[in-house]
């Protein structure tokens, strides 16, 4: 097992190199330069000044050297300094926002699991019932609904019309002065909409997948055996069948990570959540190369690690899988 994990970790290195080469190339081949923002508005910026600025950011060197420098710095966990006026190290900027994004995504993953598994299982067990039909309709709508639109509607309903939930940020203005319990509740209230909507996006896929798995498993011989030896229907479904149907779902969950991380750009922008997605959006708008590269890199690492965790969990949960 340990050998397998090590092998997978080693394999991540070429993957990450591939990903960063693509990102780096795409970003730098695009016309325009980050220094434009500083010089465009300034009629007194001479050609010489522009060159100096470019040299300051290493933008005058050939692309492969710039990439080499980037990788070399990355080895000591230095992602350079942000091009934004604050000039802070990228690692610091990402570091303070990463926990927010990870927390949001983990919460919505848990919510997806908690909701999708029962939905899928019950609709498979009661195939063609009204419940099953309702879930099918829900799944189809869930696949088609633009989640940012759903976010807008729920903001209007719960935030504007009913006034039950806050619609932006993670904390109220008076957060500092609240007693701990109230502060916690304040945080929860701010999280309900972003987490709920982000989970909704992944819900449809997983519940549909669970239903298909369950239908497959129920047909197997060992389920008939379980029934034949007189186990209650509850035990047959929730002990024998569910466990087997649950396994492949782990992989699907792993595959949904890139979507979740990508989606955090939209949610964090809509709900003004100070996470990595919002930082990414702002950096893209400001052509902050080092920060963009840093976030793309972290995003790729998160995805790869998520997939690895999913595969390891799969192997641990299913004794039939022998890895090595």
């Amino acid at each position, binding site marked *: 097992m340990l050998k397998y994990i090590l092998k997978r970790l080693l394999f991540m290195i070429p993957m990450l190199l591939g990903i960063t080469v693509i990102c780096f190339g795409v970003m730098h081949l695009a016309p325009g330069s980050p220094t434009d923002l500083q010089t465009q508005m300034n009629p007194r910026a001479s050609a010489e000044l522009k060159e100096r600025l470019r040299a300051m950011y290493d933008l005058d060197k050939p692309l492969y050297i710039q990439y080499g420098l980037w990788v070399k710095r990355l080895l000591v966990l230095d992602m350079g300094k942000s091009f934004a006026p604050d000039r802070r190290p990228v690692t610091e900027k990402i570091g303070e926002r990463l926990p927010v994004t990870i927390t949001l995504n983990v919460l919505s993953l848990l919510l997806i699991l908690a909701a999708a598994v029962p939905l899928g299982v019950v609709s498979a067990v009661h195939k063609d019932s009204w419940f099953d039909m309702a879930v099918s309709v829900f799944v189809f709508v869930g696949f088609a609904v633009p989640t940012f639109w759903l976010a807008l509607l729920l903001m209007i309903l719960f935030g504007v019309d009913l006034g039950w939930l806050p619609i932006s940020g993670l904390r109220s203005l008076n957060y500092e002065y609240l007693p701990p319990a109230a502060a916690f509740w304040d945080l929860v209230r701010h999280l309900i909409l972003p987490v709920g909507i982000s989970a909704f996006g992944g819900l449809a896929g997983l519940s549909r997948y669970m239903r298909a798995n369950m239908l497959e498993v129920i047909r197997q011989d060992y389920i008939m055996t379980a029934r034949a030896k007189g186990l209650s229907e509850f035990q047959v479904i929730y002990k024998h069948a569910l466990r087997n149907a649950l396994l492949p779902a782990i992989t699907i969950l792993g595959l949904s990570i890139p979507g979740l991380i990508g*989606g955090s*750009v939209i949610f964090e922008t809509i709900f003004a959540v100070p996470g990595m997605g919002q930082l990414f959006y702002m950096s893209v708008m400001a052509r902050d190369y080092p920060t963009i590269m840093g976030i793309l890199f972290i995003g790729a690492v998160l995805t790869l690690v998520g997939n690895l965790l999913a595969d390891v969990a799969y192997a641990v949960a299913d004794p039939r899988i022998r890895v090595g």
Partner: protein
Amino acid sequence: MDHEFRRRLTDNRMALAGGVIVVLLFVVSLAAPWLAPYDPLAMDLTRILDPPSWRHWCGTDQLGRDVLSRMIWGAGISLKVGFVATGIAVAIGALLGALAGYYGGWWDAVIMRLVDIMLCFPTFFLILAVIAFLEPSIWNIMIIIGATGWMGIARLVRADFMSLRERDFVTAARVLGAGDARIIFRHILPNAMTSIVVAATLGVAGAILTESALSFLGIGVQPPTPSWGNILTAGKDNIDIAWWLSLYPGLAILITVLGYNLLGEGIRDALDPRLRDGR
């Protein structure tokens, strides 16, 4: 399209509903100049943010433009982006998938690693970065959505090619002296067409969703050109006063995407009845 396939497709009520939606959207986007009650760009500063009424069925936006007219014109943009982007994705995916599946070996290893890399990537991040750098234009959007959405099709086509290349009709073609290109494009690809059609139909839905998200974030279709996504941006800016700006364009996106999804799934079911219960 053989007879049996057509019967199964029309028997499937969901696919039929999807087909009707898709056809209606085509009609709407082609007939936009006649259907739209107002000029989608005409501002009327006396009627800013009017709620829905008999005069303006879906209300007006922050510049007094008729929302319904903008949505009708936006339909064409969405379809155009959906189709061109998917076309690009199919072209890349089919070509790479065919090469990987037909030649195997090194081709397969390299192409599939590329697929793995692209798949484990938060693609939306990449799209966002590229579009913002390239100046958002409708063509850039189509190209980048297509260039980041071909992996699923490549996998499907590869799988089809791997099983088809061993079949007798391929051997027969080779014995008759057909070259690789001819075998790939004239003999095997037509047989892999069914799964491509299904994936492409679902792909159009995905591309429309992505375009609307980009336009919503302000880096897709640029105002004043109307698109469902950028009307929603106005909805977000006026969230506490103008619900109609948020409600209707999103509904249009939902129905469109639903239509393509239903049609795609319907075609799949009609082509392969075994899959019917497997959902």
